[in-house]
C-alpha cells in the first residue's frame, strides 16, 4: 500500500486515492478533424511501460484534486509528484 504525498494535503494512505491511468494524454481540441486512427490513438492506446511511468492520481477521499505522479512500475517507487498542467520531470 503506497504512501502518496498529495500536493494539496500531504502524505496519505493509498486507500484515499484512485488512479486515473497514463498522464499527459490531452483531449484533442478538434476531435472532428481527426481520422479514425488518430482518434483511436487518443482513445485506446496507452504505453503501460516497465519503468518510470507518468500517471494521473486523484485524492478521491480527500481534497478530490487530480495531480500527476511519476512512478517506477517495476518497484512502485514514486519518484515525483507534480500538479496538473505542469510538464513531466526529466527522470
Amino acid at each position, binding site marked *: *500500500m503506497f*504512501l502518496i504525498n498529495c500536493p494539496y494535503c500531504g502524505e496519505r494512505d493509498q486507500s484515499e486515492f484512485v488512479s486515473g491511468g497514463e498522464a499527459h494524454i490531452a483531449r484533442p481540441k478538434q476531435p472532428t478533424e481527426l481520422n479514425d486512427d488518430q482518434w483511436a490513438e487518443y*482513445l485506446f492506446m496507452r504505453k503501460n511501460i516497465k519503468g518510470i511511468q507518468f500517471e494521473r492520481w486523484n485524492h478521491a477521499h480527500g481534497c478530490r484534486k487530480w495531480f500527476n505522479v511519476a512512478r517506477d512500475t517495476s518497484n512502485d517507487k514514486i519518484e515525483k509528484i507534480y500538479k496538473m498542467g505542469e510538464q513531466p520531470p526529466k527522470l
Partner: protein
Amino acid sequence: MSKNLRINNKQFVDETRKLSFVFNGKKLYGYKGDTLASALLSNDIHLVGRSFKYHRPRGIMTSGSEEPNAILQIGNDDALTEPNVRATEIELYDGLICNSQNCWPSVKFDIGGINNFLSPLLPAGFYYKTFMWPASFWGKYEYFIRKSAGLGKSPTKQDPDMYDHRYMHCDILIVGGGVSGLIAAKIASDDNKKVLLLEDKELLGGSLIYDDNDISKIDDQKSSEWLKKLIDNIKNDKNIIIKTRTSLAAYHNYNFLLARQNLTDHLSVNDRNNKIRQRLYKIRAKKVIISTGAIERPQVFHNNDRPGIMLASAVKKYIDYYGVRCGLENVIFTNNDSAYETALSLHKSGTKLNAIVDIRDNSSSEIVNQVKGLGIQIYWNHSVVDTKGYKRINKVTIMKLNDKGNDVIGKKIELNCDCLSVSGGWTPMVHLFTQSGGKLKFDNKDNIFVPDKTNLNQLSIGSAKGDFELDDVLKNSIKDTKKFLNIENSNFDKIDVKCSKEKDKKNIWLLPSDKPLSKTKPFLDYQNDSTAKDIKLALREGFKSIEHVKRYTTTGMGTDQGKLANMHALGIVADTTNTNMGDLGTTTFRPPYTPLTFGTIVGRNVGQFFDIFRKTPMHDWHVDNNAKFENVGQWKRAWYYPKDGETMYDAVQRESKAARESSGILDASTLGKIDIQGTDANEFLNRVYTNAWSKLQIGKCRYGLMLNEDGMVYDDGVTTKLGENHYLMTTTTGGAANVMSKLEDYLQTEWPELDVFLTSVTDHYATASVCGPNAKKIINKIFKNLDLSDESFPHMSFKEVKLGNISCRIMRISFTGELSYEINVEASYGKYIWEKCIEAGKEFNITPYGTETMHLLRAEKGFIIVGQDTDGTMTPVDLQMDWIISKKKYDFIGKRSLYRSDTIREDRKQLVGLLTDDPNEILEEGAQLIKDGNKNPVDMLGHVTSSYFSPTLKKSIALAILKEGKKLKGQKLLVPMIDKTIKVTVSDTIFLDKENERING
C-alpha cells in the same frame, strides 16, 4: 505412559499447572507452557497424521511454523473448529480437543495408505496426467480425491468469535524478538526512537534464551543469563511497545505491514468469553528491521519421513525448553556443527545418544571436541541410506561415503534408535524480505540465499541475514543497526562474545543411496509428498523454470509454503542441470507468511457492518409499511410493498395499475443530484451531454444523455435550470459518484478555463414523486396557492414554493409516462413531505410503489435504464435515441466516437421491443435470442434486458438488444429456455401511449 520422557525442568514449563487435553479421542496431560506438540511428545506420541498423497505415517518434525506434518483439526464444534493448526505453534490449554487430519478411518489404520504401495503409479504431475481424460469423468475423480485427500474440515457454522483491527505507527518496527532483534530494539530506543517489537512466540529471546552450553559467553556470562537481563531491561523501556504472540503476516510496499496477534487461543475455552480472539495490526513503519532468524534444514535420504525423525534443533528445544525427551535411543545425523549442541543437550539431560553420523570428514571446532571428549561414537564421512519402522522409526542404516560424496561404499551398519535428529544446515528466514520485493543473492559458503537489494527502508540482521554464530550475530547486528539508524555509539560497542566456530562445511542436496533413485523415497516436501524423484522427473519432462517445477511437483505449495523443502528442491535442480543456484533464482514467497483466519482479515466488517448502507429520509416509513428492499449501489431502495401475503408479482401488478389509474408515489431520493454553478455552467452542460442546452430557459427541465469518450452511453438524467448560472443535475442512483468524479476530472484536467463549480447534493435533498391521472389534484391539496395549470406549470418545468417554512422544489417531469410531480425538499423534511402526500392522496387511493413497479411503468413507455438496458457497449444510435444527439454542436464528450467505423456499423446490437406470441408468457431477463433453432452451433443474436407483464396492456412486454434489431421489426424470433422454446415478435420499444397524452393527466 510407562516411559518417563519428562525431565526435571524447567523455567519455561509450569509443572504445577497440569492441563488435560484430548487427542484422537484419548485423554492426555501436559503442562502450562507446553505447546500441543511438546505435550504429545511427552506422551510418547510422534505419529500425528498421514501424508497427503501416499498417506504415509508422519510425526512431529519441528518446533515452529515450518512444521509440515503435525497439522491438526482443533475443536469439535461446528462453529469453532479450526483446520490446519500446527501442533508446534499452538499453546496447550485445558480442555483442548484435537484430531488428526487427512486419514480415514483413523491415523493408525488408514485406507489411503495403500497409495504408498501404489506410489510408482503416482509420480509428479500424476493428477494432471491422469485425471484430465476424459474430461467428463472429472466429477467422479474429484469425489474420490476429496474423500481420501484434503487437509482438514472447515467450520460449517458462522464464526462466533470477535476479531479486531488496529492501526499502528512507529519509527522502527522490529520483526522477531530473538537476540538480534532485542539488541536492535535497545539501540533504537536509546536513540529515542519509537520502537514496535513483534514476537510470534509467547516469550522473547528466541533460541538463545534456552541455550545451556558453557562455550557461548557474552560479557563473561552464560549467554542465556546475559539475554534475560537485556529482556528485563527492554520490558521496562517506555520507547518500546512489545507485542508477543504476534506474527507478521504480510510485508507490503512502503513499509506497510500486517501482523496478527493471538489474544485468546492459549486460554481454556471458558476463559475466552467476550474477549477478542485475534487482532490484526496494520502497521506503517518508517524503518523495518527483520530479525526473523533461520530454520534448520533436514537432509534428503531414503525414508527420511518416518515418525521419530526430527530436526536436531527441535529435539534440542524440546529438551531444553519444554523438558521433553523425544526418544530414549537417539541418533544424530548432521552435516554441520549445530547438531552437536543437540548432542550436548541430550547428554546433559541423561538421554541416551547412540551415535552421531556426520557426512563431513571431520570437525575440530570447540563444540565438536567437547562432544568427542564425552566418548560419543561419531561416524565421520557416513550417510544414512535407509530407516526402518512403519509408525515410528526403530533403526537407521548408514554407509560410508566415497571421496566424491556421490556414492556410498563399504558395508551397511544398523543403529537402533527411536528418534533421529537431522540437521542439514540452516536457511535464513528471508520470506518477509522477498515478500517486500527484496532481491536475494546466493552465498556459496553456507549454501543459502541472503538478502541483497531492497527499495525499502529496511534491514535484515542476525541469522535472517545469514549470520549463524553468536559472535557474528551480535557484532554484525550492532554494527548494521547503528549504520541503519545513523548512530555513532551504542551501549553494546564493547561487547565481548565467545562461541564455538565452525571450520568444516559440507553439503550434499540429495544424499547417495545403495539403491537406484527409482527405488527410493527421499522426501523434500513432506506436506505435499514430493520427493527428489519427482523433481528429476519434472526436469526430464522439460520443466526448466523453478516456478514450473514447483507447480508440476507441488513442491512448496502446502500451507507451510515449503519452508523446509525449497532449498533442497533448488539444490537438486541446480545439481541435475549443472546450474549455479544463484542463477536459478528462488520461487516467490507470498503473503501470508503463516495462514490467517478469514475472521482476522475481515475484523469487525461482518454482518451488517460488511458494507455501509444508505437509507433515504423516508426509510422508516417504508419499513413500517411492509416494504421489501433491494440494494442499489449502497442504497436500500423500497422494491415493492406486499399487502396481505401478496407475492412480488401480485404487488407489482397492483401498484402499477394504481399508478396508471389513479395515483402512485415513489421515493426518488436516491437519484444522484449535482448542483452546478458558474458563468460557464451552460457551456459545460453542452460539452458533457449529447443534446443542446443553450436555449434552456430558467425554470425549465431537460433530459440529457451522457456518453463516454468511446461513444457509449454512460448515464442519463434530468437537469433543471434554477437560475441564470445555476443548474441542478440528476443522475442515476448507481452512477451518481462516478458521474461526479468524471465531471470533476474534465473540469480540473481538460477544461480548467471553465468557471464551473460542482457540489454533490444527493444526500441533501429528499424526493417524493407523485404520478397518475390524479396527481394534480393531490399536489393541489398540498400547495393550495400554486397554479398547476398546463400553461403556468407545463411538463418539463420547475417551480420553487413554500410549504410553511419548508422550501420545495417541484419538477413536473415523468419517468412513468403519467402526469407526474417530483417534490424535492431538504432531507430532514423528507418524511414529512412524504406523509403529507400520502395523506392528501388517500381519497385517490395513492399507492406507494417501489423500484420494480417503476421499472415496469417506464418499460411500458420504452424508457431505458442505463445499466440494465445498456451495458457499456451501446451508443445512443443503438438505443434508437438518435433524436438526442445534437447535430449542431461542434463537440461533446463521445461525439467523435459516434462515427468511428465500428460505431456506424449497421449490424450492431440495437434496442428493440419484444412481444411474446402467447401474451401470458413472461420472458426471463438475460434469455438469449435466436433465429434458427436447428443450426448448430446456434447464432446468438441478442438477449432480453427488461421483461414484465403489463397489467394495463394485459400482455407480456420486453426490451432486448438484438443484432440488426432496427431492421428486424415484425420478424419472428425464438427464445430457447431449458424446457421450452418461446416464440416472440420484434416490436417497437414503446408499448403504451405512443402519443404521450398521459403526461397531461
